[in-house]
């Protein structure tokens, strides 16, 4: 298929001097136009590193070397990133307004992005500082930042793991609304049921390699690989 926004072909990523440690690969993956791809895996699987490479940030990391082919059809502005912890993502010393304007977005874009995350200017003052907002509001401000330049792809790296259950549900609802406007997602998480509910396709990773990929139904109900089975089985579920 050729309409991939991002394509990895036999990508191998190594770190370090002398004896190099392989963090990823060889890895093949593609992120298609208008899809939500879930990348599932446990710590050290290489999920976040893969995200850094999609953002083109690995080149900045000391000692990282990438082999293979990475095709990225998106301009830098068309990709946004949502980090895990909304508190450390915002600078405590600057007001929300100045942080939103940091990327050069004008007033109209800021207002529009805030409306999309249900924080119209009547509800939030641009003069307020991060510590004055609740956890849920902070995360919505971070999401608004990601929406500023109308991205075609949003990479969300464990965006809900520092939130409680109800806030997590709120953020997922917001993501669904954004997804419905045609924005693609790369959704990175270790929470399989959460990703299955949101994504169109899941990719299971372990030790830098792809274990398997499939629709949420395939992965949740008919996993082919033993590792995926183990992940499905260890996911906590409600016993009713």
């Amino acid at each position, binding site marked *: 298929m050729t309409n991939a926004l991002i394509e990895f072909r036999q990508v191998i990523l190594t770190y370090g001097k002398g004896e190099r440690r392989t963090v990823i690969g060889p890895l093949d993956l593609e992120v298609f136009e208008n899809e939500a791809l879930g990348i599932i895996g446990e710590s050290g699987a290489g999920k976040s590193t893969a995200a850094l490479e999609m953002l083109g940030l690995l080149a900045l990391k000391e000692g990282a070397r990438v082999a293979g082919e990475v095709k990225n059809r998106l301009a830098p502005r068309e990709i946004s990133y949502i980090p895990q912890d909304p508190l450390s993502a915002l600078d405590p010393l600057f007001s929300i307004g100045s942080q939103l304007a940091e990327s050069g977005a004008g007033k109209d874009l800021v207002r529009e992005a805030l409306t999309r995350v249900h924080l119209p200017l009547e509800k939030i003052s641009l003069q307020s500082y991060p510590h004055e907002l609740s956890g849920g509001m902070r995360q919505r401000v971070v999401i608004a930042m990601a929406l500023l330049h109308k991205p075609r792809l949003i990479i969300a790296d464990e965006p809900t793991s520092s939130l409680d259950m109800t806030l997590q549900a709120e953020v997922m609802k917001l993501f669904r609304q954004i997804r419905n406007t045609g924005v693609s997602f790369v959704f990175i998480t270790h929470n399989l049921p959460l990703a299955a509910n949101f994504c169109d396709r899941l990719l299971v990773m372990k030790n830098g390699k792809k274990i398997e990929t499939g629709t949420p139904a395939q992965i949740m109900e008919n996993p082919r690989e033993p590792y995926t089975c183990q992940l499905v089985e260890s996911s906590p579920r409600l016993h*009713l």
Partner: protein
Amino acid sequence: MNPVFKFENVSKIYRVRSGLFSKGAGFAALDSINFSLERGKTYGLAGESGSGKSTLAGLLTGMTHETSGKLLFEGEPLRQVLRKGRASYAAKVQMIFQNPYLSLDPAWSVEKIVGEGILSRPSMEKKERVRSAVKAVGLSEDYLRRKPRALSGGERQRVAIARSLAVRPEFLILDEPTSQLDVSVQAQILALLKSLRPQIPAGMLFISHDFALISELADEVLVLDKGRLAEAGPAIDVLRNPQAECTRRLLEAVPFWPPREGKA
């Protein structure tokens, strides 16, 4: 028989100062809680961030005290019990914390960490207890000499659990013990906790915002909402037929497969 813990109209109010000399307004982290934790049961304490879950755990461990009302431990006011001796109380009630990366001293060996709660015991007995506690959490003896930095998150949490077990506590408080861990490690720790239940005679209090985890372990469920006890009852009843708005919110938020109707 007296319940292990009894809350009689317990409130915990924090003073929030607005200025240097103002007395400040009160913020009720816990608001008139009435409840008993009966012997031998596993309780799940649920609630959103800021609902007072950790404040409640803080009261039970004696790290903070109630502002008003009465908190009884085995029929006796907890403050009085603590005044008689914190060590003998700690020998009965132990707590396991959320973050195993912070709760272990990085400079100590596993053997020293696990023996921390039984320092006053004769050295032979101490050695014996440390060994059996480490074994009980599924770690081999060569772990005794290791330092926390050589352990994975799951192993660290096992060491933290072993430290509590070495004391042979009667009651165990677990504050989000798996939230920092990977799912497969989380499943192992949950299985471990289930298997340990018979060794903890007075019961456990398992704190989490995730009803899926609570439903794995708890016989009884308590739900806190903004410092008030919103709901309490047998786990089956609360999960199947939630009464409080906040319980419903937390239950609906649990990701489900296959997806619930009308969610997308």
